[in-house]
């Protein structure tokens, strides 16, 4: 059929007009939610995250933009927001940390008050453990049981067979880091959240994992936020001193058998708050952030005065040591209002690679197949 030319013109005009109004009106179709402008990766082929290095991006408090990025070293690839991609929903508000056991990933989402359990290979959600009280960190007792620390005065015990809460261990104050030692779980406690002053009583609780009872506590410096164990079975506790420098930060060496402090190193620099205490795979070298990345042998007699990796204007925020290679993974959270960057250095501080991340990259998690 032949259409008269003017009619076609009119038709085209109408179509253009429709398109124009459609552009405005099209927003009404889908729910208006935060989106990524142009995803930096274009991966469409299904990949397995089995050997991945996971970057947990906290996201901004109350913005609901927590995410997980994964580095696939074999493929030399980084993929953003894999939880959203696998489950068509966002991870939640403030993802604090991640742990892997039996090929399951446990994502601790602090301000969503839950743990998302995913299959590590594809990040598909398996189940959700709700009802926590601002959870922070997780540590496995064995393959059936794990402990979770909370801002709100308790430690939650999870039954890993059913992925449900089995018990709650009441504490006086906010609990933070966990470390398994023998049949005990050591848990740092910072003090009362609402009282960020000198009145906070910081301790390391000693919990008998068979009875789930607090059996002892060791008094530490203000804000014990980091804890690792070295090759000689000595526990190192990093005390930040408090974000407002309530006291000088300190690094303690605890004898977990005698439950006493054997050594105390005091930071003299005012205004900085050391954090993210890590240890290398051989258990003889400590790493921490204090602006830049610092390295210290467990046998050292003083704190290092020079950083291994200077911050150079970056806001270094997350730090982890690869459990096999000993490579240093450190993240830059920038000003918290833009996406971050992660850097991979070798153990002597030579930059190897850098990766894009999501908002506020705070912690790393290495896949099970590569951990000890």
């Amino acid at each position, binding site marked *: 059929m032949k259409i008269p030319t003017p009619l076609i013109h009119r038709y085209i005009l109408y179509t253009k007009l429709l398109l124009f109004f459609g552009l*405005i*009106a099209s*927003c*009404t179709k*889908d*729910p*208006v*939610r*935060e*989106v*990524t*402008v142009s995803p930096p990766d274009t991966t469409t082929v299904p990949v397995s995250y089995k050997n991945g290095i996971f970057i947990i991006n906290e996201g901004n408090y*109350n*913005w*609901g*933009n927590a995410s997980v990025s994964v580095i696939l070293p074999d493929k030399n690839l980084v993929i953003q927001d894999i939880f959203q991609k696998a489950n*068509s*929903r*966002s991870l*939640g*508000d403030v993802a604090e940390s991640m742990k892997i056991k039996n090929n399951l990933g446990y994502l601790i989402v602090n*301000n*969503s*008050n*839950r743990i998302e359990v995913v299959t590590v290979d594809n990040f598909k959600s398996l189940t959700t453990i*709700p*009802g*926590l*009280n*601002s959870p922070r960190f997780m540590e496995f007792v064995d393959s059936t049981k794990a402990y979770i620390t909370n*801002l*709100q005065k308790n430690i939650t015990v999870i039954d890993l067979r059913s992925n449900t809460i089995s018990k709650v261990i009441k504490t006086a104050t906010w609990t933070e880091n966990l470390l398994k030692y023998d049949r005990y779980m050591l848990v740092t406690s910072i003090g*009362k*959240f*609402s*009282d960020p002053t000198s009145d906070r009583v910081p301790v390391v609780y000693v919990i008998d994992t068979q009875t789930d009872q607090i059996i002892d506590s060791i008094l530490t410096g203000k804000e014990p936020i980091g804890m690792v164990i070295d090759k000689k079975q000595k526990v190192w506790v990093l005390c930040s001193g408090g*974000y*407002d420098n309530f006291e000088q930060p300190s690094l303690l060496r605890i004898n977990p058998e005698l439950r006493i402090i054997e050594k105390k190193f005091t930071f003299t620099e005012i*205004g*900085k*708050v050391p954090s993210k205490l890590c240890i290398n795979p051989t258990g003889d070298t400590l790493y921490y*952030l*204090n*602006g830049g990345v610092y390295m210290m042998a467990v046998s050292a007699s003083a704190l290092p005065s020079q950083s291994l990796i200077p*911050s*150079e*204007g*970056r*806001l270094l*925020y997350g730090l982890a040591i690869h459990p096999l290679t000993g490579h240093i993974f450190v993240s*830059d*959270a*920038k*000003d*918290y*209002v*833009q*996406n971050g*960057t992660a850097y991979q250095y070798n153990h002597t501080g030579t930059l190897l690679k850098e990766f894009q991340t999501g*908002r506020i990259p705070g912690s790393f998690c290495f896949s099970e197949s590569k951990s000890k």
Partner: protein
Amino acid sequence: MDSGLFIPNLRSDLSRIISEHSTIFIKSYGNGTLATPSFRGTSAQHTQVEWNGISLNSPMLGQMDFSQVPVSQFDGLEILYGAAGIARTSGAFGGIVDLITMPDWNNRINVLASQSIGSFSIYTTNLNLCFGSEKLQSHTKWNFTSAQNDFPFTNNNGVEVKQENASYYQYGLSQELFWKFKNRHLFSAKVWLSEDNRNLPPTTSNLDTNKTEKIHDRAVRAVLEYKLVDKGYNLLIRSALNDQYMNYSNSTIDMNSVHQTYSWINRIRFTWSKIKNLKIKPGIDFTYDWVRSDDYSGRKTRSLTSLFVELNYSFNKHFHSSLVLREDIIDFSLNPLIAALGVEYKPFNKYNFMLNLNLARNYRYPTLNDLYWQGAGNPDLKPELSYSTEAGTTFNWESKNKIVYLESNITGYYTWLYDMITWSPVEGNSALFKPENIDEIHARGIEAGLNLLLRISGFTIGWKNNYHFCRSTYEKANSTYDQKIGKQQIYIPENTLNSTLSIEKWKFFLNYNFFYVSARYTGKDNLTMMPGYNLSNIIFGKNITLKNFILSLQLDINNLFDLDYQSVASRPMPGINYSITVKLGFSGTKN
């Protein structure tokens, strides 16, 4: 200089009135919660909100929450853009919104009672009593709102839930007296009490929360004013007290903090116009802020003395100019001079067509939180500096038979903002946020307005349009790793359009409001954003008058197309919702 005065009809939402009459973008965190204004690509702290010329911005935060302002307490709204604000105060880089009350000397008695019932159990009651003579007028206004505000929304996990912990109540009581003496002297005394108690709802991703977070605000504002109007000069003397109490509590973190501020605000203005074509307006302002906060160590005070002069000179009847100079003295230390220069050109006698050009330099001082917040406050902050320029035209036209009335304006502006105070994490201590003079912002844009009024065969048809294009970008990086240079400021849209069509006939009224906002970025690197959306709202009603009585029935339908949207990420907004308002009034005027 740009300004406008509007008399809103009695609707309850200030945010909507402002966006209908201006290009101000209101960032809303949800129904009944925080709503902050942004003028011309600047932040809420660059907008001064006033009540009869008295600043309502908190001296602690430097901004005002529009959700705390009940419209029924005011008779009008004045908006000053950009440089025009320098005549009132310093630091309002964006502009000024003034909520005003004024007497009607012809009024003898006016009683108004209104009740509205809305979706999500939102109830508002207003009672107004205004009476007096041609010399003395008294206004008494009372408002009360209680809201369950439990609207359904889809949470982060795709589950439809009802909003919890979102209820609020708000009441206000004001008493005003106006006394006119010998037609030259005007005395007024005003007191406004307000209180609100708001539960703050969790975000869409803050699940299973058992927390209760709430804010309790209480304010007492009182003002005494004297105005003298005489041939060749006038005088204004005003003294006001603003007492604001705020209690924030959050059970999750056992937090309960109280903030109490008192401000004593004084103004003297003199206008002298005895020389032909010249007006000289010297003045002095004195403000004293006193704050006691659980988050400050000890009591903090600040005094601000401001010396001011405005000169208006008309070269001829086409060409007018103005110069404003302001010198601020804060706690006995002199600050750099603030200045604005404006010219206005009306080329035609026949047509109401005007061109104007303004240049300004302005400073904004750090807020008391910026200076004194415990553990974070930074006493070394410099004031923010801005240079701005704007050029615009207005054209108003009325047909000879008075059937068509047209108002149009278009303005282009460019603002350079230096040393903007930004709260950022501290290197080496990422748990601590500190305010620093970090950002440099360039904001430029175009504002266009077109209003049409048609009176034809008993119909009154009004069509109001405001469009704003704004590029407000970061121009300085914090480090070489910073990705924000040249990127749009977060939560500032590039395009906003507001269009309102109103039709009146046989005392029926219909008002259709269309609002479009383009995408707002949520990251300074502009890699994440909230998509743009449009909303439609409708008001339909009828007025019935019988002698001196008026009965008015009104139906409001908000979010007509039931859009599932968020204006701010993770903050739910209600879908389609309704309210019905019944007003009953009695009025008697002179004769």
